[in-house]
């Protein structure tokens, strides 16, 4: 198991490297519009644009290796370039090269917008994002698993119908609609304003913190739980039909024991996979929540940086998201064995 974990972790740097190269191609090779135009505005003069390019180091070649002669762009990307007769050229000061060297030292550059340290900005916004994702995922897992089980146990009863209707509504009603209603409806009916913006740590002012985070987390979590709910229901229905569940019942075990330690345990593998999927859903959903309630987290950071083409921020957050996705998948894979001892890794 340890060897398996280490082998999986050894892929992490390779994946992150690939993601960083892809984002560089996406952000610095492909764009059809000039960043100097976007950042400087349409009225910027040529000198101003050049100054912007110099300031942000956008004049250097993007990748350390190019082909001289016909090609100004990277050879293995642009199919028009022919390889015959051209010479590979190496650039000690390419954009990607210097980004990588700094990134390996933990320095992800400064933001274009206000020259702040990217890592510092990220760390500052992390607690808000973390709390939102954590609470949402907790709600998602709690509602998804508990109502999924109940729906399977009380099949074809009003409870089951209710859960199924709820699950299909949860996949259909957009999160941004519910989150907007969270602001609009209480304000209209009871003159209650859902707090937005600003982050107060839970140890400073628990009441304000929960007022800020619980309602959106409930919406994001419950909306994200519908997929999990459906899956838990179908898996449990299959498992409940099996022989060992009948045996467990026959030997007089309590209903709770049968459900929790016989049925649920055997249904754990697909459920854990779905929890991983729910995490990804919640991770995306929290971005919308941060945007609507202007919670200063990394989702909103990503969003505003996208609009202002703040390249260092987008690059860093892309690599960070990739790392989160890879680690979550690894944790899900490892948890199979924790839940079901028959699982062996090789």
């Amino acid at each position, binding site marked *: 198991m340890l060897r398996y974990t280490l082998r999986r972790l050894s892929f992490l740097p390779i994946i992150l490297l690939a993601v960083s190269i892809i984002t560089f191609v996406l952000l610095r090779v492909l764009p059809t519009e000039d960043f100097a135009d976007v950042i400087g505005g349409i009225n910027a003069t040529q000198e101003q644009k050049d100054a912007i390019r110099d300031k942000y180091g956008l004049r250097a070649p993007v990748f350390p290796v190019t082909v001289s002669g016909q090609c100004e762009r990277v050879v293995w990307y642009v199919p028009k370039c022919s390889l015959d007769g051209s010479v590979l050229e190496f650039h000690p000061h390419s954009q990607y090269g210097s980004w990588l060297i700094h990134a390996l030292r933990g320095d992800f550059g400064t933001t274009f917008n206000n020259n702040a340290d990217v890592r510092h900005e990220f760390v500052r916004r992390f607690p808000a994002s973390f709390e939102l994702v954590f609470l949402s995922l907790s709600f998602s897992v709690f509602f998804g698993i508990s109502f999924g089980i109940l729906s399977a146990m009380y099949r074809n009863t009003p409870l089951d119908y209710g859960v199924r209707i709820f*699950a299909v509504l949860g996949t259909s009603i957009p999160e*941004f609609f519910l989150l907007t209603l969270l602001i609009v409806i209480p304000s209209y009916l009871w003159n209650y304003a859902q707090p937005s913006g600003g982050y107060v740590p839970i140890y400073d002012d628990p009441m304000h913190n929960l007022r800020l985070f619980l309602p959106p987390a409930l919406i994001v979590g419950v909306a994200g739980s519908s997929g999990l709910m459906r899956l838990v229901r179908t898996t449990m229905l299959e498992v409940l039909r099996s022989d060992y569940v009948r045996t467990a019942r026959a030997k007089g075990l309590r209903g709770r024991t049968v459900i929790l330690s016989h049925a649920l345990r055997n249904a754990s593998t697909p459920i854990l996979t779905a929890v991983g999927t729910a995490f990804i859903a919640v991770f995306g959903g929290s971005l919308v929540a941060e945007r609507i309630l202007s919670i200063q987290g990394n989702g909103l950071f990503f969003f505003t940086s*996208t609009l202002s083409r703040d390249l260092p921020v987008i690059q860093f957050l892309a690599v960070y998201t990739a790392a989160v996705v890879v680690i979550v998948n690894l944790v899900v894979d490892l948890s199979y064995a924790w839940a079901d001892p028959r699982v062996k890794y090789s």
Partner: protein
Amino acid sequence: MAAMIERERRLAPMESWEIPRPKPWYQKLARLAADNPVGAVSFAIVVLFVAVGVFGASIAPYNPKELDASSQYLGPSGVHFFGTDKFGHDVFSRVLTGAQIDLKFGLVVMLVGFIPGVMLGVVSGYARGWADYVIQRSAEAWTAFPALFLLLTFVSAFGPGLKTVEIVVAISALFSGSRLLRAVALIEKQKEYVTSARSTGATETRLLLRHVVPNIMPFILVGFSSVFAVAVLLEATLSFLGLGVAPGTPSWGADLSFNADNQGTKYPFLVLFPGLAISLVVLAFNLLGDTLRDILDPRLRGSTGTRK
């Protein structure tokens, strides 16, 4: 018990040698609708959505872009069914016109993304090989990320706009179509009818097109319906975030965001109507997909949890 009845029915002597006349199609359809009321209603909503998408702009009672300072923030009434917004736009007309964007968007995603993805999935599941491996690994990598993050990264590369969103959602549809149909094709090619068709000398192409594809049509239709739902949802989300349609264009997501920012707390109906329109259409496509799955493929019955 059921098996016994079935056997007796089979063993019972034929009472009449007349071949029953096939029922006309409208009777079959009525029967199908009566058996699946949820599916019938959702199908009706989908038809309505398509009709509104095509004719909405011409049947809208008011010009959705016309400024009218004298009729700001009017509540829902007989004159303005859904009320009017900050600029005096008739919200009902805007909701009708907004369907067009989603219909167009969904169709583009289907044509550029889902249908090629289906072909790719069937062929790669059927033929396997290194291409299959590459497609599957790319699909896994792509779907591992939250769609919204991919969209944002592409938006920062190509700038905001419906085109960018279309590209990303089409790629997502391509991968989900290919994954879905690959799994189906893998199972299907083991089936006996494939072997027997091959033994009669059918070429591989004919086998695929005339035998395998008709048999997996149910899965394609189900996938079509659910991918359309996701496409509408993502378009609305991106337009809500201001990364989709150009400002001012009637679109459910963009209107919802605009109305929420402009006196939304005072006039909640402005937020409610576009939001309900999105929810209703996505719900109808989801339910239609579930119903189709149940009707077309009894093997899958119960696997989605919306019907028994």
